[in-house]
């Protein structure tokens, strides 16, 4: 019986190794003190997520298994905790500004030789943020066009930069009741207005026209002492940093504002359209009818 147990144990180890090598997709052990086998790859056992990035299926798992000593559970948890803290603090330091994947990779994963460790850590960090904090660590892909200098296009091809933002997944009722406050939320109203204007103008609008619309709300381009937004230009630049909009130079003179990757999200678009419809209805219903949310 003992020999049988030993044989089974040996077979189990072999199976595990084979599974890892063959891209079995088995994740990590759930108990502390055990090794975490960094297995990457699309498998039927793991749900495919959009955030996995560029990992292939079979050969990658074999390469990962052959890259040396696996990461221990404690180390993995430490990396995840570091990433979660980093995202939270970055979101406070620069509210809404996307965090680059390179920055996340430099938190500690660079000390390890595993190529796909970053992806695993990000995935786990997303899970923790979702379950513990009620936030979604959403991935955005920013496409950088080759710049044109002096009439010649750069030789660099179009590059994609992955960034991550935090979005709240708390239900609206709970948010209104426990999270949001008028004072803290007022700063977001400018982003909503600007995004709404640009979307209604066909996803792009000239800078001149944008300021014409904003002037009707008392928001002037060169105003730096607005009671809510302070310096208006800086506020608009902050909205661009948050990747709601992007500013591009026109062929002639001037600039145009376009929607950036964050505003092109389907969920946000749907909510924005709903909001715009309600605004239009409330205005059409009569001059004395106020806006009713919900």
């Amino acid at each position, binding site marked *: 019986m003992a020999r049988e147990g030993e044989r089974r144990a040996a077979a189990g180890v072999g199976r595990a190794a084979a599974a890892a090598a063959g891209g079995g997709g088995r994740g990590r052990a759930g108990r502390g003190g055990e090794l975490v086998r960094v297995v990457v790859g699309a498998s039927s056992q793991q749900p495919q997520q959009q955030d996995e990035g560029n990992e292939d299926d079979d050969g990658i798992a074999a390469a990962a298994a052959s890259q040396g000593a696996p990461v221990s559970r404690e180390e993995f948890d430490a990396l995840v905790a570091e990433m979660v803290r980093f995202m939270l603090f970055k979101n406070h330091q620069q509210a809404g500004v996307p965090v680059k994947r390179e920055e996340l990779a430099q938190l500690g994963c660079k000390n390890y030789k595993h190529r796909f460790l970053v992806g695993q850590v990000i995935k786990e960090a997303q899970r923790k943020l979702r379950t513990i904090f009620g936030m979604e660590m959403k991935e955005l892909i920013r496409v950088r066009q080759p710049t044109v200098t002096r009439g010649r296009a750069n030789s660099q091809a179009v590059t994609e930069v992955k960034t991550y933002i935090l979005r709240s997944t708390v239900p609206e009722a709970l948010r209104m009741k426990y999270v949001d406050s008028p004072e803290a939320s007022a700063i977001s109203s400018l982003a909503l207005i600007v995004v709404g204007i640009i979307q209604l103008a066909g996803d792009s609008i000239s800078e001149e026209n944008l300021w014409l619309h904003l002037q*009707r709300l008392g928001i002037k381009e060169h105003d730096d002492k607005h009671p809510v937004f302070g310096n208006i230009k800086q506020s608009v630049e902050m909205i661009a940093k948050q990747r709601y909009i992007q500013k591009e130079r026109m062929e002639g003179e001037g600039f145009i504002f376009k929607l950036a990757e964050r505003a092109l999200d389907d969920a946000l678009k749907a909510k924005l359209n709903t909001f715009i419809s309600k*605004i239009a209805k409330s205005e059409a219903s009569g*001059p004395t009818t106020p806006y009713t949310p919900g």
Partner: protein
Amino acid sequence: MARVKSEKGQATLPFTDRAVSNGGDQHQSNNVHQEADQVAGESPVDQTSTQRRMLRADYRSIKESIAVDKESLMQAHPHTFNSMIGKVDKLHAMVQRPREQIADAEAVLDISSTLLNFIKVAQHKDGVSPAEFISGIIHSFGMADFREQSRGNVNGEQESECHIDWGALGLQATLVLCEAPGICTMLGPMDILPKQRRAPVAQRRRDRPADVTRPEEVEDVDEANRKTETDKNMEAMFKILRTLRSVQLEALVLNRVSFSQTVENIFALSFLVKDGRAEITYGEDGRHLVVPRNVPTAHERAGGKVVNSQFVFRFDFRDWKLMLESLQEGKELMPHRTSSPSGNQIASLTPIRKNSRNRARETPVGLESLADGEGQDDDGDHEEIIVSTVPKRPRSRPYQ
């Protein structure tokens, strides 16, 4: 909206038919007809430069109003659009030269592009334009007085003050944008590293200062008033002579401890004798005695009563040894001098160099006592001046 030439080759005015069909302004259309007849049938009246300038100014004002009222043109106010078109029509009737034609074409282009954008937007978003969106924001979140102001300013004139409820609008914005709050639990950036302690710089070991030394006292450097050691010895010796009147020569000069000080005493006595302040005589037992005398006056010197004479007082170490034996111990009168000579005295003493190849290091005159008092052997072969030989410097041999 291109111009269409009539059969007669004369340019016909556009908008003519539209102006008639709209029936908006019959008077305007009549005027347009009249101008058309004039253009068709008669030769155009030459315009002056002033008239053309005014015409271009009118076109510029229309372009500016189009730029400012762009959104109001697209609102549900068709009269605004029609009035704008009517103005352009009027001005167009007076166009004759290419420069004004360009201005006219630009005005028409602005109006048509604005209309085109309006149609695009209307088709894109169920007819909600950005202007309507702003109006809705004002209606929903504006304060009561601000709503009234905005209603009165449909042409998009700038409002003087903002009275939007940004807080309420912000609550809606967070629901739409789903922004997550951040957490601040630490001070400073995450990548800040603790400051490294500076490597302690090894301080130079400061040597302890030398032993406490008293600075040398500044002595009077006046040569005339400076007392030499010999003068002091003379004074001391003369005091003894004045006190004791007649003393034995050996007792006066001998220093039982130091041979050099004995020589110095003899030296001082010689000066006293030279000055006439001391006299060396013989006693009854044939011993030499020294008695004090008054200094002879100049008269006595001149009279020949006082004459200087010389004799050689040979005194070496052997003689000193004999003197030690001849004089009873304790009979010495001159005190033993222990202090080292001062710096000035040292500076005043120059070493005596011998004209010999054997350049020995010589002790300066007056400092023999220092050398004598310390471990000098009692060998009697020493001369008066103690010298120490140094190895002869080898000659540099030529290169071979």
